[in-house]
Every structure is written in C-alpha cells, then in structure tokens.
C-alpha cells in the first residue's frame, strides 16, 4: 500500500475534521446513580409487564395471547438490562487483562497448570477471531506452549459473556453455570490433549522465525478510563446484538404462549442417541454470534429438545467456526486444524451426552 501524505489541512475534505468531543468521561457518581436506577427499574419489571399487558393493552388474563405478551414485555427489558450491566462489567474487567499481560502470565508455564490458567484467561481477555493470527503468533513465539495457546484459543470464543447472560436470564443460573463449567472443561482438556500430541511440526514453519516485537507500551489506566472501556463495550456489543435478543425473546414468547411443550422431543429428545452428533455436525459449519444463536436455543428447548443436545449445538456453533479455521489456516497446517476441530468436537459431544444422561 502506497503511503499517503497530507501536507496541510486545506488539502482535505471538510468532513475529515472532527467536530465531536470525547470529553464526556463518566464520573464515579454517575456510575453509582446509574446503578441505583438500574436496580430500581429491574425490581419493578414484573408489575410493569402486568400493567402493560392487562391495563394498557387490556388483554384478557390467562389467555394464550396474554401469556405471550406478558412474557415479551417482562423478558425484553430484563434481558437487555442484564446484558447492559454484564457487558459494562466485563468491559471493565477486560481493561485489566490485555493480551500482553495474559501472555506474560502464560509464557513458560508447565502444561497442566498452564491449560487451566489459559482457559480461565480466555474468558476475561478481550478477543476477536479477526485477531486470532497475530495472537497465536504472539503467544507461541514468546514461549507459551502450543497446547496452552490452544486452551486460550478455544475458551475465548466458546465462553461468551453475551451467551452467558442470555442463558442466565432465560433459563436460570443452572444452565448458565453448566455452560460456563463445561466450556472451561472442554478448553482445558482439548488444549492439554493437543499439547500432549506434540503437533508443533504442523504449525507453519515461518511462524517460529518471526521476531515478535515488544508490543504496546503498558498504559496506566485510571478508573475513568476503565469506566469508559465499559461504556464503549456496551455501545459496541449491546448496540450490535439487541435486535437478535429481541427476536429471540419474541420467538420465546410465541413458544411460551402457543407451541405444545414436546414438539421437538421425538427428534432432539433424550431418547434419540444420534441427535447429539448430528447437532455438532450441523453446528460446526454454521456461524453466528452468540446473540443470534440464543433464539434457536430458546425455540429448541421450548419445544422439548434435550438440554445436552441443545448445549452441544450452541457450543459447536459459537466455539468452532469455519471462518476462524480459515483464518487460522494462515499459521496452522491442515492436519492441525482438523485435530483441533476433532478434539474440540469430541469434547462437545461428550458434554452433550453427559447432560442428556445426567439430567
């Protein structure tokens, strides 16, 4: 790409000169007031939903329509509020965990403990699959073992805060905890297995030749900077996913009011042994963000599909994505990509069966 040179501002179009201000830094007191307001609102969602459904819309109580509408009016603000709070919190937590710091924690780690730490750090370190390649190179060229790197790369997309909040909001803490726990376990074990297989020869040779630079200077962040990071995360993530969330809740509301409970039971129920592998095989080439997949999860569970099957489907959609594998092809040879997909796929399969048997 040819460098572009600008000598004076007169050469540039007028709209290239910024007019907005970025000084709107949220103060601590504002955050506290915001949190108090959030709590007050959140506590009153139930009466609010009843008031809208029965007093404003005047729908006959305990009709199918009233059930669906009350569900939607109650769940939409509830889930969006939860999402906002958690994304804000996660944005602040992530301001403490830069990839550089994570790498320093993981460099030269012994395998097993390294895998545990990498899976946990995968949850809190900011990650975007578009940066998977520089991250991979940055890790393996500075002494993070291959298997530990994989634990990180598996946990980071698989355990998604949006999915976690939506599961918590729609299905309760048990389902959310299952998702978190099993996601961590899959990342840990898969990374450990890949490490034990010693597959370094299937990493493209030029990767280890690269001289990785020191990285960005450590910036000292104030609490205001961190609050701003939280706010930016809310703007970015909630701003992007809210239509999917509403669509998911609308689907859920329809199911809540209308669809008979065991519609999916024959196809995706506990009794059907092949439903778990089928869910994984369908899920891998599918690519969706976490918010987009929740409506489907909602629909499947509501119609009587087994939890293990649905969990397996969701994890293979968000945890194993074809685009990410294509991106990783730059640094990994095909056998390693297949091993990676195979090991993680088997892990997801095991989780699916486990929950169908236990629950």
């Amino acid at each position, binding site marked *: 790409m040819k460098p572009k040179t600008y000598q004076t*501002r007169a050469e540039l179009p007028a709209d290239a000169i*910024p007019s907005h201000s970025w000084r709107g830094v949220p103060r601590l007191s504002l955050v506290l007031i915001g949190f108090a307001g959030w709590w007050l609102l959140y506590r009153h969602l139930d009466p609010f939903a009843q008031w809208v459904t029965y007093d404003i819309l005047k729908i006959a109580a305990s009709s199918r329509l009233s059930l669906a509408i009350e569900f939607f009016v109650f769940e939409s603000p509830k889930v969006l509020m939860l999402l906002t709070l958690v994304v804000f919190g996660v944005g602040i937590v992530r301001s403490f965990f830069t990839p550089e710091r994570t790498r320093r924690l993981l460099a030269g780690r012994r395998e097993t403990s390294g895998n545990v730490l990498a899976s946990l750090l995968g949850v809190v370190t900011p990650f975007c699959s578009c940066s998977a390649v*520089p991250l991979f190179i940055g890790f393996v060229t500075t002494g993070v073992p291959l298997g530990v790197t994989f634990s990180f790369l598996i946990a980071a997309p698989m355990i998604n805060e949006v999915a976690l909040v939506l599961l918590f909001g729609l299905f309760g803490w048990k389902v959310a905890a299952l998702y978190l726990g099993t996601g961590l376990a899959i990342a840990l074990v898969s990374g450990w297995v890949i490490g034990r297989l010693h597959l370094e020869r299937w990493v493209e040779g030029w990767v280890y030749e690269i001289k990785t630079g020191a990285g960005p*200077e450590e910036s000292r962040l104030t609490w205001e900077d961190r609050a701003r990071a939280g706010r930016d995360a809310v703007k970015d993530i909630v701003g992007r996913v809210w239509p999917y969330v509403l669509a998911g809740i609308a689907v859920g509301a329809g199911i809540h009011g209308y669809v008979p409970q065991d519609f999916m039971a024959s196809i995706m129920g506990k009794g059907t042994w092949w439903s778990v592998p089928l869910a994984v095989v369908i899920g891998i080439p599918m690519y969706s963000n976490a918010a987009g997949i929740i409506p489907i999860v909602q629909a499947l569970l509501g119609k009587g599909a087994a939890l293990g099957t649905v969990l397996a489907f969701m994890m293979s959609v968000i945890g194993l994505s074809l685009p990410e594998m294509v991106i990783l092809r730059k640094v990994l040879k095909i056998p390693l990509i297949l091993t990676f997909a195979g090991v993680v796929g088997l892990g997801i399969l095991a989780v699916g069966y486990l929950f169908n048997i236990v629950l």
Partner: protein
Amino acid sequence: MKIKVLGTGCAKCKLLYAETQKAVAAAGIGVELEKVERIDDIMKYGVMMTPALVIDEQVKASGRIPPAPEIVSWIMTAAAKASA
C-alpha cells in the same frame, strides 16, 4: 512524522484508518500515513490485537479505535518530541 495503521484488512482496521485520516487533517502537520497489512510486519510491533496504531515506531493503541482527538493529542506530543 510517520503514522502506520496495522491490520489485516478487517472492518475495524478500515475504521481506524478513517479516524486517523481525520486526526491527521485536524492536526494540520505533515504526516506520512501508511497501511501495514502483512502479518510479519505487524508482528514486528508485537501487536496481538488488530487494528493498531503506530506513531513514529511506537505502538499507541491496539485492539481499539481511539477517537480522532485522542490521536491528535498523540500526534502533537510526537511532533513536540521530534522537534525538541
């Protein structure tokens, strides 16, 4: 002064490039703006999250798109350092 936008061509990299163009215009000083898209060139800066912004060989931001006024302040600081 040399400014580089590092990134392998993702949507956010384009946003950062546009934001940097605005900042350069606002700063009103001579700046050479360059896109760096080759992965080994990017790794030389040790950047693990793209896009990243490099001013006079120093990584100023990575994995985020700083608003134009923030970039302007870095340009000004770098300019002052260069002339001192």
